[in-house]
């Protein structure tokens, strides 16, 4: 990693390679001060911090959920297990996380569209989707998802027909929700791995539909 490019230094607020001409912001100073005190007091270990960051930047993310979705699309037995006990089905893939004590998977169908939110904070199924995106944690989404889900879906380009029921799931306890999106038409010849590449994070939250690749079908 180029040391003369602070934009690409992953630890630019604490590392030695930071551009020394730019003053630290107030929040950068607060974090640096607190981390240094925690380390000096023996309350955190810097190597553990690096391992935590690496876990959520490189290992735990929405590709986990996408693999589960693709498996459910091609394997009816797995789909049944996933919908009956999401926690166990995710664990079959090795996807378990401190944030995801009980995972419930919600199947989108031509009759029902599911949408996941946390109106009180930012609860999210880390084991299968990683850390939540900013919009999911933002007040505009958290406030509107429960009172105007159809408006939210229209705005985000995932409008739902009038005759389809919309179910919003507010993650108020320690149960975490993930949506099993509909498999797009025209993907019958695709492999499980190719299907997984089509599945987006937002489709597993319920604010997007999975699109077939151009020319499919």
């Amino acid at each position, binding site marked *: 990693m180029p040391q003369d490019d602070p934009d690409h230094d992953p630890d630019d*607020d604490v590392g030695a390679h930071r551009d020394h001409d730019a003053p630290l912001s107030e929040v950068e100073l607060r974090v640096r001060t607190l981390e240094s005190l925690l380390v000096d007091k023996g309350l955190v270990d810097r190597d553990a911090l690096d391992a935590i960051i690496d876990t959520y930047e490189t290992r735990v993310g929405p590709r986990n959920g996408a693999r589960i979705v693709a498996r459910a699309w091609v394997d009816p037995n797995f789909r049944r297990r996933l919908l009956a006990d999401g926690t166990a089905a995710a664990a079959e893939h090795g996807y378990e996380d401190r944030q995801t004590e009980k995972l419930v998977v919600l199947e989108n169908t031509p009759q029902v569209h599911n949408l996941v939110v946390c109106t009180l904070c930012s609860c999210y199924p880390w084991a299968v989707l990683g850390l939540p995106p900013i919009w999911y944690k933002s007040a505009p989404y958290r406030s509107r998802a429960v009172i105007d889900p159809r408006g939210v879906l229209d705005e985000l380009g995932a409008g739902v027909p009038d005759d389809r029921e919309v179910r919003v799931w507010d993650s108020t306890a320690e149960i975490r929700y993930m949506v099993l999106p509909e498999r797009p038409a025209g993907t019958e010849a695709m492999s499980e791995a190719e299907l997984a590449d089509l599945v987006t994070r937002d489709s597993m939250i319920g604010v997007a539909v999975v699109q077939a690749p151009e020319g499919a079908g």
Partner: protein
Amino acid sequence: MNGLHDVGGMQGLGPIVIEPDEPPFHHGWERRAFAITLAAGYLGEWNIDQSRAMRERLPATEYFATSYYELWLYGLERLLDARGLVLDEERAARGQDPTVSVARVDRVHALAARDVERVLGTARASRTDDDVEPRHRVGDRVLTRTINPVGHTRLPRYTRGKRGQVTVDHGVWTFADSMGNDLGPDPQHVYCVRFEARELWGDEARPRDAVYVDLWDDHLEPA
């Protein structure tokens, strides 16, 4: 607390902006704030509900101007001070002079790097084996309590005093409203309750749309 964290049903908070290909973190300090919060959580000095409760105490006038990981930082600073682990005075002194020394804390042990993979892959144990009778059954009609506690609650404002139907019994869990207010586990059943959109929002809502909310026995009465 009827605070600004409890935003369900609020209006006028602006557009939802999705950033394409958003990275997990946008700034180096966010990585560090995230990691020290998780690592310090494994000291065992507080539970997740106390952590959420502390973040909810951010003054309302600052809430919408505070970014997500700044909110985490605020909560962590307050918890560490409250437990006597890192005092506000120590942060102020270190902020003025980075060379100020501090004594090690011996009563707790830092999460070791070799344990990170194991602990992050282990779910929190909020679910318990306590033998507690359910007060409601799947299919029951329930009425949520009308409460306005000044402390922590996981019963959102928009669901209070509303009628719904139990769809799932999730088993016995520690009660967040008790844990978050330093009152112990108080284990009880958690249910998924379906509320018709019209029950929550009135006749302009779609007749077949619904909101599902996970609630504890103490939030519910028979309807």
